[in-house]
């Protein structure tokens, strides 16, 4: 018969890292040596400068705060709650504690003698790493914390060590010593060489520097033009300049470059610029073979297919691809970028097909993605959010014109619904006459929102300000932006409102036990990661970038990156926000794929301890950015 006390202690420990990875024997041996401490509220476990204890502690119940006189006396460096480890310092550093540990509420701690752990540590590097990380996260100054990102990334890669999809994360494989020609060579010479070497492209060089590239396609175009001449020089048909990358480039990065520039080849040079020596060439085909089901292939298919059924199939492939990526150590930035590019291409194609069905548009128009679609931040299938702007027409034609676009929008919307993007419950869709307007009407609409700030208008702004053109005339979208920025310029009242709106959801304080969880309805006891953590970052980025008068930055990450450029003094805060945004988006995406849901509600009881730690860290930058907003827009007077 087992010893129930030891079993009980082991049962508790095994829920948390690093114990969750221990063998049953090791766990039992540790559990049998545990000592149970009870610390009443406001009592110290240890004080700064105290001699090291021979044991470290796992919080079984309650909360222990860590603080140091070195930092701010009032600021808690960390609050350890259920399952958190503290008091590791003697294992790594001096023989005295550098912080004090105070019970913020009555706490039960499981003390584990270092002695009991020593042999385990010697044979188990992952446990050692985990303890080091816990130690580091305890001792860290929260301001300098997540911006560095080190902890988070080692954590990721550790966890995915044996993932099969890791190939994707490897450096791109390229062909060394590619065949090059001078731009003075003739097209025929080039075709001969390409034919004999069975290659699809040639780099055009000048003294070992790449000046251009000639591909199969260029030669086809030359032939098709009918004006070919045997003596035509390559410089007339080559693409120039040629996109270059340095030799150590991740496959993922290569993919997004190819997607972004809609090109099939990249030249590999010594330093990645076209001013350095050519060392290789990398083609889309190289990557295709490296990964059969890849974004480039999906993108191609989208362009080729004509039926909705095929698009549905591609949308499903995209989901599978993204789901697989999420399981790898692939940086979230790449996952989001690939999702964005393919989603945009899908929408584009849907509109193209719908237009054929409904008939040609009477006037120029632009289809706008709004909200998260406009920001290009969708990984999961979400609601449709879109709007439509068309050219001004004669008064008597306005009704007919709007009618046409509503019909088009309904068709598009129906198709998107079939693709899995369900109708927006708030009807923020181009098929709603309120959001299918002429350019002048849109300008009036935005003016009204900006000039008469109210809670409702702020909400509309936060959704419609993040528009980006999906299809149609760039000019119209651009004109609308100009109008908005003119209206916004130095409009302090408006920014005060928008700023207030951005801080309305404070971060969940960083302590899991005090998490604001939804207290009623269907999502009781769940945490709304979208509204409480992602949205505050999105809102902050928006109000800051708008107030800087920067146009054409819609994506939250890109906005923060731009802000770092503009305000290097705030780099730490903004970089922390980028990191958090990635982490939170990943949580949401994984949750969404797991439950076939929007992923916005996380069930706290189902999160592992290390997930909780990650989440907890991701909240700190939200607090920082919100106090920055409060200062900048003087919200303290306002709130």
């Amino acid at each position, binding site marked *: *018969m087992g*010893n*129930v*006390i*030891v079993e*009980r*202690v082991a049962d508790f420990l095994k829920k948390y890292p690093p114990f969750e990875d221990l063998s049953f024997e090791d766990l039992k041996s540790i*559990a*049998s*040596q*545990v*000592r*149970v*401490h*009870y*610390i*009443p509220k406001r009592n110290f476990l240890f004080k700064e400068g105290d001699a090291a204890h021979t044991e470290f502690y796992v919080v079984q*119940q309650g909360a222990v705060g860590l603080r140091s006189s070195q930092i701010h006396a009032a600021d808690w460096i960390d609050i350890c709650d259920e399952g958190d480890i503290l008091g590791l310092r003697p294992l790594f550093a001096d023989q005295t504690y550098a912080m004090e540990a105070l019970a913020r509420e*009555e706490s*039960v701690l499981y*003390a584990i003698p270092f002695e009991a752990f020593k042999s385990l540590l010697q044979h188990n590097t992952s446990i050692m790493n985990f303890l080091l990380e816990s130690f580091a996260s305890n001792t860290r100054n929260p301001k300098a914390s997540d911006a560095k990102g080190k902890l988070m990334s080692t954590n990721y890669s550790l966890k995915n060590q044996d993932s099969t999809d890791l190939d994707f994360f490897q450096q791109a494989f390229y062909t060394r010593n590619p065949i090059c020609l001078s731009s003075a060579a003739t097209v025929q010479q080039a075709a001969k060489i390409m034919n004999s070497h069975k290659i699809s492209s040639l780099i055009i060089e000048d003294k070992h520097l790449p000046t251009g590239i000639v591909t199969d396609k260029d030669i086809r175009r030359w032939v098709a033009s009918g004006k070919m001449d045997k003596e035509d020089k390559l410089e007339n048909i080559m693409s120039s300049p040629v996109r270059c990358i340095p030799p150590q480039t991740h496959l993922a990065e290569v993919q997004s470059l190819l997607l972004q520039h809609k090109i099939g080849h990249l030249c590999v040079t010594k330093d990645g610029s076209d001013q350095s020596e050519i060392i290789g060439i990398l083609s889309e085909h190289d990557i295709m073979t490296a990964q059969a089901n890849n974004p480039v292939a999906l993108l191609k298919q989208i362009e080729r297919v004509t039926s909705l059924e095929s698009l549905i199939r591609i949308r499903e492939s995209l989901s599978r691809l993204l789901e697989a990526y999420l399981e790898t150590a692939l940086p979230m930035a790449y996952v989001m970028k690939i999702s964005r590019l393919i989603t945009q291409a899908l929408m584009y194609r849907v509109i193209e097909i719908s237009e054929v069905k409904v008939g040609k548009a009477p006037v120029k128009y632009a289809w706008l993605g709004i909200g998260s679609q406009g920001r290009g931040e969708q990984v999961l299938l979400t609601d449709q959010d879109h709007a439509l702007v068309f050219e001004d027409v004669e008064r008597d034609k306005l009704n007919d014109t709007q009618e046409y676009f509503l019909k088009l929008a309904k068709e598009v919307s129906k198709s998107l619904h079939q693709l899995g993007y369900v109708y927006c419950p708030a009807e923020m869709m181009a098929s709603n006459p309120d959001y299918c307007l002429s350019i002048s009407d849109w300008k009036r609409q935005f003016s009204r929102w900006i000039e008469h700030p109210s809670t409702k208008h702020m909400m509309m702004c936060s959704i419609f300000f993040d528009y980006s053109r999906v299809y149609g005339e760039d000019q119209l979208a651009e004109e609308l932006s100009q109008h908005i920025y003119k209206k916004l310029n130095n409009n302090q009242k408006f920014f005060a409102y928008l700023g207030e709106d951005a801080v309305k959801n404070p971060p969940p304080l960083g302590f899991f036990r005090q998490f604001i969880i939804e207290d009623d309805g269907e999502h009781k006891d769940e945490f709304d990661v979208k509204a409480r953590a992602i949205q505050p970052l999105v809102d902050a980025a928006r109000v800051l970038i708008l107030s800087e008068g920067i146009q054409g930055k819609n994506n939250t990450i890109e906005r923060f990156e731009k802000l770092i450029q503009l305000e290097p003094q705030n780099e730490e805060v903004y970089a922390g926000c980028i990191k958090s945004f990635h982490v939170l988006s990943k949580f949401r995406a994984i949750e969404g794929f797991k439950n076939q849901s929007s992923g916005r509600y996380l069930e706290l009881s189902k999160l592992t301890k290390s997930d909780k730690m990650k989440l907890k860290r991701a909240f700190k930058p939200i607090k920082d950015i919100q106090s920055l907003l409060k200062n900048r827009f003087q919200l303290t007077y306002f709130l």
Partner: protein
Amino acid sequence: MKLLFNKLFKNKKDYPEFWQNYSAKFKNDDSARVVVLDCETTGLKPTEDKILSIGAVALHNKIIYIEDNFSVFLKQKINKPESIAIHGIVKNKTDHLVPESEALEQLLSYLGNSKIIGHHIQFDVHMINMALKNAGLPKLKNKVQDTSALYSQYKGVHQLMRKSLDELCDEFHITKKDRHTSMGDAFLTAQVYQRLILA
């Protein structure tokens, strides 16, 4: 009186070695260690009911030391079916059952001179003393403290408040696990005791 004393004295020499060892420990006063104990029995009548198991865990300077624990399951002749339902100790599970006398020997060696703590501990001590008597031995020499009485003190009430272990665990937010196993109850009582003396 003198006759009785002599009789005891005479008998004392005849007590087995383990009792002599146990008894000798009381020459020193070591108050740093206390033992929290719980017995599972066949019923509530000390005259006819028997101990089925004893579980205990020790505190050193108010810290529970898991490794300093004690557990024994006794081989008993009577086994009333109604108590089996509560304790889950089934008669035919004989692998680890030890005779009462051997269990007592182990217990005394574990207890030493430590103060014994328990919830309504007088009953448990009484049951052990009955067993000792059956073995021809005197009563336990240890100091005894009842968590139920400590609780009344903690509350500042002079009357004894008869609260169950379940109620105390609820009040102190201690997760109830393994209720009605002697080991489990001892561990829960130890946690209650820790709060009563520290909070």
